[in-house]
């Protein structure tokens, strides 16, 4: 298979090209810019036939993608942090109109203080917009994620947009080997889109975004949730097919690493889970029975998988590179919520790590492992939420 050494951002751009996107509307923002620069380069060099719409803001970028997608085109965009926040209103329009747009969001901390470094709060703050969310651990997953995203999003029973999320700089600007299948094989995996409706069927004119009075609005919300439920099945199906075709399996919404006999596990999302896996290997040599659970899909949330996992471990250390002020880490909050009405109640502790690009290393994970072991032996939490890096 052809391999390229590319940054996470270039992996995203290549994936968009290989997915044969027809329309790209985007606005530059650090650390996302090199995605859309690369796409512009493909177009300038005649390597890709894409309608590129330069817009004056991210709000307009998403609006243009919505318009393009409503005509039946395959639309793609990319953004980060402040740009994603500016898109917020249009994100609801995309999911409400059931348009399978795919966007790469490069996780970047929200200001102030001004920051361009990694932090998941920007994308997690879009949790309730009706977008699916996939967190990539490495450049390969950024590439694979974009290809799978279109297939999942455009599935006739789904028709919802997907956000593929990668870390600022740790992935976006770091070069790594990425395996890119031949175009024919990708075309076979991802055939042209069959839209649910199109604005360009002039014999059957339609209005998109119609008024829904209190008599009708409710049912349409339910339909979005039904589509999300379908997406759980479709994600696994598409992930399995991807694995069979390209030898990288994504059939699990939570990737499990050495969890079978684990006493406790680390759970988290995105690039930090690569470091965690490394630490798990080292900790196992030191006699710790630990494992890692990487939550790939945050929306739809992998409830079943989490339950099965939680049933077999004594403790879960949830690593959140994000925070919901007035509450706790967002993944921690979700995971606790899922388990409340079940019989799986491991000890759960929330570690707030790496905000705004603070380094999170193997030695930090070892410290956390020591703390978790003590908690499990004592059978009682010291504290529920730990601001791990805080200078005291």
């Amino acid at each position, binding site marked *: 298979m052809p391999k390229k050494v590319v940054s996470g951002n270039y992996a995203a751009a290549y994936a968009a090209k290989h997915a044969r996107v027809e329309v790209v509307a985007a606005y530059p923002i650090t650390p996302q810019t090199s995605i859309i620069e690369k796409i512009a380069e493909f177009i300038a060099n005649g390597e890709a036939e894409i309608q590129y719409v330069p817009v004056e803001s991210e709000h307009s970028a998403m609006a243009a993608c919505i318009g393009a997608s409503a005509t039946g085109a395959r639309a793609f965009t990319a953004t980060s942090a402040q740009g994603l926040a500016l898109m917020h209103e249009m994100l609801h329009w995309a999911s*409400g*109109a*059931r348009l399978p747009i795919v966007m790469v969001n490069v996780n970047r901390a929200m200001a102030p203080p001004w920051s361009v470094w990694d932090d998941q709060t920007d994308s997690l703050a879009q949790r309730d917009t009706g977008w699916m969310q996939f967190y990539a651990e490495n450049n390969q997953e950024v590439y694979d994620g974009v290809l799978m995203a279109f297939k999942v999003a455009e599935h006739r029973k789904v*028709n919802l947009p997907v956000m593929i999320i990668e870390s600022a700089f740790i992935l976006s600007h770091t070069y790594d080997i990425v395996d890119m299948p031949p175009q024919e094989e990708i075309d076979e995996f991802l055939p042209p889109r069959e839209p*649910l*409706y199109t604005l360009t069927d002039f014999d059957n004119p*339609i*209005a*998109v*975004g*119609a*008024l*829904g*009075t209190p008599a*009708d609005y409710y*049912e*349409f919300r*339910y*339909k979005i949730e039904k589509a999300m439920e379908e997406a759980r099945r479709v994600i696994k199906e598409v992930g399995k097919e991807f694995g069979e075709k390209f030898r990288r399996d994504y059939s699990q919404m939570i990737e499990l690493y050495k969890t079978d006999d684990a006493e406790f596990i680390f759970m988290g999302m995105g690039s930090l889970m690569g470091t965690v896996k490394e630490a798990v290997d080292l900790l196992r040599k030191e006699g710790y029975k630990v494992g890692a659970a990487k939550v790939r899909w945050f929306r739809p949330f992998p409830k079943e998988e989490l339950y099965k996992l939680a049933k077999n471990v004594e403790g879960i250390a949830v690593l959140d590179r994000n925070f919901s002020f007035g509450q706790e880490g967002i993944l921690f909050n979700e995971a606790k919520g899922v388990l409340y009405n079940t019989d799986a109640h491991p000890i759960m502790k929330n570690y707030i790590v790496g905000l705004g690009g603070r380094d999170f290393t193997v030695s930090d994970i070892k410290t956390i492992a020591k703390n978790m072991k003590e908690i499990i032996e004592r059978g009682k939490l010291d504290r529920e939420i730990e601001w791990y890096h805080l200078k005291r």
Partner: protein
Amino acid sequence: MNTLNTLFGEKKAKAKKLVFKSVDEYPEVPLTLGTTLINFTGDWRTFIPIVDESKCVKCYICWKFCPEPAIYIKEDGYVAIDYDYCKGCGICANECPTKAITMVREEK
């Protein structure tokens, strides 16, 4: 009350309103649910404008100001209000220089 200069009811009588009895009957996407060919915004009205042609000087200020627009100029030069879509905002009555339009509480 002069209710002759109105198109009220003609479109409405012909319209086939969309009624969904169960969630399965709904389309997957909220498309073309609310076009005004089947939904009549005049139903939202509390006050109805009534035109007194004996006071009308055909200045068409009401026609210019109506935000819908639900005021039409008839062949005889007087104005007609399309009550299917007039929301009863009262701007026409407020702007009319000869007070030829009055707002009357509509009995429903």
